[in-house]
């Protein structure tokens, strides 16, 4: 584990063509990391996320992705992800290959990745058309009961970014609240970077079973207060629901989107 800034972490760990998971199930979405990947101009990425959310709508709209592995691509409680739709429906700004799963499948595939397995089995996709459009969905028979179970490849991203509340001075990371698939994504990845709200000397008194990623299970910690905005960080700030609603208008039009990204994401580079 190394303590890096976000520029260093992205420069060091994200390469053109990588498969990248920026996870965070509604909570703790690592926007700061995504924005730095955009500023550094990475391309040809395979993006992996259960819920692409605004974070991948932005990345897809900026043309960094050639492939998306996902299970639910909407703006939660609001509607469509217009940039994702534009890419799939009209190949703008470039064609986007999609590998589509259900949530249960993605969650099991991250779990299998964290567990070092090549594949995950679960009872899934029964009666659904999804297996007919995703060749990565296969079925195997239980050798004891004969039951047909779904089997999909484990997710093993080249690099995962997650956001967490705290790191201590050793670089251990504490996550609390809706923990989603963040721990699994970090453990499943070849390289894992955690952006955090806060660095503390010591986590202090806590439950024995607190969700902690030890320093030796991740590659870098980056101090990034507010790094999950406009999503939220339990104990730090609330979800900016108004922005999620406003995004519908911003992203609906290609030019409005590009202008917004230029002004609010890409120009950040100059300031630093």
């Amino acid at each position, binding site marked *: 584990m190394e303590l890096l800034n976000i520029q260093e972490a992205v420069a060091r760990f994200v390469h053109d063509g990588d498969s990248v998971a920026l996870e965070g199930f509604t909570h703790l979405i690592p926007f700061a990391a995504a924005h730095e990947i955009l500023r550094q101009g990475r391309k040809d990425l395979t993006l992996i996320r259960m819920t692409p959310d605004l974070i991948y709508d932005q990345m897809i709209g900026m043309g960094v992705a050639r492939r998306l592995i996902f299970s639910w691509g*909407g703006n939660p409680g*609001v509607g469509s992800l217009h940039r994702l739709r534009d890419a799939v429906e009209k190949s703008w700004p470039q064609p986007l290959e999609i590998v589509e799963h259900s*949530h249960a499948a993605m969650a099991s595939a*991250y779990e299998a990745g964290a567990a070092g397995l090549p594949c995950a089995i679960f009872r899934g996709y029964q009666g659904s058309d999804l297996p007919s459009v995703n060749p990565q969905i296969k079925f195997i028979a239980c050798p004891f009961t004969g*039951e047909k179970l779904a089997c999909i490849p484990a997710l093993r991203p080249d690099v995962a970014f997650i956001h967490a509340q705290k790191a201590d001075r050793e670089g251990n990371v504490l996550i609390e609240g809706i*923990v989603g698939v963040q*721990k699994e994504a970090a453990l499943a990845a070849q390289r894992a970077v955690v952006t955090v709200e806060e660095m503390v000397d010591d986590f202090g008194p806590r439950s024995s079973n607190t969700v902690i990623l030890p320093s030796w299970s991740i590659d870098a910690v980056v101090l990034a207060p507010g790094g999950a905005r406009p999503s939220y960080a339990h104990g730090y700030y609330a979800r900016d629901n108004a922005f999620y609603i406003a995004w519908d208008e911003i992203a609906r039009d290609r030019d409005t989107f590009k202008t917004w990204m230029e002004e609010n994401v890409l120009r950040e580079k100059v300031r630093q």
Partner: protein
Amino acid sequence: MSYSSQEMMTVAAARALSNSDVCFVGIGMPSAACNLARLTHAPRIKLIYESGTLQTRPDVLPLSIGDGELSDTALTTVPVPEVFRYWLQGGRITVGFLGGAQVDRFGNLNSTVIGNYDRPKVRLPGSGGATEIATQCGQIFLVMKQGPRSFVRELDFLTSLGHGRTGRERQRLGIRTKGPTLLVTDLCIMRPDAETNEMTVNSIHPGVTREQVRANTAWEVRFAEAVQETPPPTASELEVLRDLHARTARAHGAAVGES
């Protein structure tokens, strides 16, 4: 007391829930219906959101499936793989709420694409949890606004299994859960026919005609022998629902989560 068709739909869905239910809740109308049930006749209902919040009691409706409010008021919050593996696939959920862009006469759902999968006219959000919710909850309540483009003869894509394209698919696949036992719309309530599993109108909301129901269904919709009139929302149901929406609007700083 006057009410909207959206309110009628939410109230009708809420009434189908009981104190003994453990409910897998989606965002929007299902969330409103489940919390309305919890705040009225079913205070002991257990609500689970796919973000991992078990037995949660939000004071306002969440905008997303993973709002902080859900975790703050939950008995506990577990990782997402655990929610799908131990709780949903483990067979512990009695009711799942689903909707989609399209439904067919056997309660199968499309939330994936309009048009061809590889060249879609409209790319929809996709399955999310729905595909396994549809087969692993004890029973499924469908809630959707009715219309001829959403209540279709044939789905463009079958995302989540209802009773299958023949009405008999669950049995053939060895699935032991019941599938769609209820379809609540803004016009009526349908239940599967005991013989064919075709979703059949059992109750029509006050002021709605059979013609309206037919005009808003692309298949030749069947009516049960005895069709009831849905009891209208009571004053107290409406009051609780409107309070919930008012609190939600104040909390989110915008008029969201209508119904």
